[in-house]
């Protein structure tokens, strides 16, 4: 049996709920409708970045009324295990099929500095898609370093540590159905 560090009720570690389950559901439906209208008549490939964007991607594609393909990518993060060896971002999981000539919609959970997404955009543009747009559930503009146009945005949030609906802390809390602020004492005194 896997030890889960005694987590009896993960949601108990949340100080405030920033975005409720109902708000997420409503917003995802709204975004799905907008995207369906904008891409009417042409299929779109949703490219999600593991792991945080998975729940959003799963809900978003079911809220769309147009032909949809999905693909998944994973990239290393600064400070991760790969940092020392290469000093550069590594693609840990690449696209499984070509996007050349196709319309791509990147589905992200949260955008803060914009560095990862900026890298990803350059990488995907190099694969000659017909178009690339961005759909993000959360935007944390206080931390932005690279300005990136977000074509479809769910919520703008304050500069707080948030978890839930795919967002994690130590790989936990991703399963919470809402987005909440992690109680500060959980990481301040570590």
């Amino acid at each position: 049996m896997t030890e889960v560090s005694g987590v009896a009720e993960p949601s108990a570690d949340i100080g405030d709920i920033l975005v409720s389950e109902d708000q997420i559901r409503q917003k995802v439906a709204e975004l799905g409708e907008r995207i369906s209208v904008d891409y009417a008549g042409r299929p779109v490939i949703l490219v999600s970045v593991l792991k945080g964007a998975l729940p959003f991607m799963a809900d978003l594609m079911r809220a769309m009324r147009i032909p949809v393909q999905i693909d998944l990518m994973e990239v290393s993060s600064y400070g991760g295990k790969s940092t020392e060896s290469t000093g550069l971002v590594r693609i840990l999981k690449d696209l499984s099929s070509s996007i050349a000539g196709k319309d791509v919609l990147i589905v992200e959970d949260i955008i803060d500095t914009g560095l990862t997404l900026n890298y990803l955009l350059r990488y995907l543009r190099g694969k000659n898609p017909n178009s690339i747009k961005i759909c993000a559930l959360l935007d944390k503009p206080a931390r932005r370093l690279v300005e990136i146009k977000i074509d479809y945005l769910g919520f703008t949030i304050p500069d707080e540590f948030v978890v839930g609906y795919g967002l994690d802390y130590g790989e936990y809390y991703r399963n919470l159905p809402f987005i909440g602020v992690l109680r500060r004492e959980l990481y301040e005194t570590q």
Partner: protein
Amino acid sequence: MIDQARFAHASEAELARILDYYGVEWEYEPRTFPILWNTEGKVIESFSPDFYLPELDLFVELTTLKQSLVRRKNRKLRRLRELYPDIRVKLFYGKDFRALMLKYGRFDLAASLSGLEGQITPLSLGQPKLALTVPAPEAGDADVVALTAMPLIAPVVTSMRSRPRVSRGSRRRRGRRAFLAAREA
């Protein structure tokens, strides 16, 4: 490879490494902007932002000073923006940079800076500590979400709430410093 000695502060070298990692071009202190002249036209104060990111046409100034000591830098930045309205400058405060370091798991650097904000990649933080109360989510419909929108179990201590009160003496001293700085300017 980043030459640490080239930078005035370890945090600047770290930011350079982060930019390199994500393939963002940068130049270190490439330009000095005069911001104050004496009556003879001689430059008596200038400002050299730490980084310039050519692809983004953005200057980045990184300050690891305590928040209470940032006033002078803020004044210089205001002056810079007044005199050079076309340039884009982003100021990263100590707390912003510390949050960035926490996000990337650089706890050693983060610990040397003040403030605590933002997302963390808890590579070496161990397991989360836990509580047991079950929350009761409420519905709302704001797109720009405020922290105080939906109080749940315990209010999160914000930086404003946790900021120590400033004594009258401190306020007077700060006022005096501001007055002297203004007179110098």
